[in-house]
């Protein structure tokens, strides 16, 4: 098995938050590896540390100790410029609350990561149209986020995450603000990206609908990995 197979590696990661005199041990020695083109769900009770893992893997927050590798690169060693590059090109983020830029249309929201990447205007327009079509929103290109439904905003967010062809899509509760049917649509879209484009997907979630389409599930409890299940095991679990 070649090293390159792992696109995300997190090794013995600890994260402490200090609130005044109280120290909260949000992560206590978390380790796992994620293979290229895998679809992995991170599940666990509220407060178990899923979002903290999301922030750590995504280079969105520092950790107290431990190592995180994205494509074999130790992200602790990256400077500010390299980190921005990583967030811009390697990883696409999806959030529970969409986090779109409200001043800009759907198409412009997709173009801004490309602006930061230095993609010429013509190419940006073309690419953003293609991606919008892929997520089924070609007719809403000019609409601002405020004029779109929650499900449509999440599609724009997914489209934005895809702007610079990332190796990994990281999601934190992408379906938590959506109703059942819309949530299923979003999960279906993520699965399609995973299968058709080979994008690695890592999603923190409470949503049991994610279980059946995940290759693996990492269960987190009290800041530790409780167990890791393959899809095969999950089906056995479901029957017992």
């Amino acid at each position, binding site marked *: 098995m070649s090293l390159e197979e792992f696109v995300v590696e997190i090794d013995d990661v600890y994260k402490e938050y200090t609130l005044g005199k109280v120290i909260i041990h949000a992560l206590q020695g978390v380790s796992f590896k994620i293979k290229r083109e895998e679809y992995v769900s991170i599940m666990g009770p509220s407060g178990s540390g899923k979002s903290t893992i999301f922030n750590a893997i995504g280079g969105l927050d520092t950790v107290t100790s431990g190592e995180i590798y994205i494509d074999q690169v130790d992200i602790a060693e990256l400077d500010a410029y390299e980190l921005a590059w990583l967030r811009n090109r390697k990883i696409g*983020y999806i959030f529970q609350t969409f986090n779109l830029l409200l001043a800009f249309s759907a198409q412009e929201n997709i173009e801004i990561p490309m602006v930061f990447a230095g993609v010429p205007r013509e190419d940006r327009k073309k690419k953003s149209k293609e991606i919008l079509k892929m997520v089924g929103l070609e007719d809403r290109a000019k609409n601002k986020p405020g004029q779109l439904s929650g499900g449509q905003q999440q599609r724009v967010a997914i489209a934005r995450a895809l702007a610079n062809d990332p190796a990994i899509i990281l999601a934190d509760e992408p379906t938590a603000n959506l109703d059942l049917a819309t949530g299923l649509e979003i999960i279906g879209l993520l699965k399609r990206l995973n299968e058709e484009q080979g994008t690695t997907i890592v999603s923190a979630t409470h949503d049991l609908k994610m279980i059946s389409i995940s290759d693996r599930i990492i269960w987190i409890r009290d800041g530790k990995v409780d167990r890791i299940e393959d899809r095969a095991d999950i089906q056995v679990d479901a029957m017992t």
Partner: protein
Amino acid sequence: MSLDLPEPKFSISEVFYLSYSNIKRRFFRSVITALGIILGIAFMAALLTNSLILDWLQTGSGVEAYQYWLVGISLIVAFGGITNSMLMAVNERVKEIGVYKCIGGLDSHIVRLFIVEALLLGILGGFLGGIIGIGMGIGINLNRASLQELSVLLESNITSLILLLLACIVLAIVLTSLATFIPARRASKLSPAEALRYEN
């Protein structure tokens, strides 16, 4: 690390377009911020114009000490009003800064976006505030001299008035940019996760 990265490009026209969109989208908020700038600058310009006119009219002992006091106070008011408006405007948008960071914006990109917005508001606010203030400064002297006298006086001193207007614009630009640069830079140094969960 040697990721061998290309130089980032973030052209002036992109920056202006993004900043302009932000002002437009937050139009009502931008108007309030601009009003803060206009008020501060107008108050100062009115008092300065009044002092100038009194000086030109050579009334009695010329400019009195209290005039200097008033101008000093008006400067403080302008300073306080403008910095407060701009600080609040940035503080409301820390989450947005977090979003820019998540999609690959460099700290310098983000600061540039905010500075250009501040510049646009500063130019507009300084210009309008200056015009309004100078007009008011002239208005309050209509009882001291006839309109005819005043217009002769103003015409012969037109360069001073233009300089005053320019000074208003420069002051507004300096204050808005500084009062934006400092908090925007601080916010852009937060990690994206911290910026995203920032509550104001």
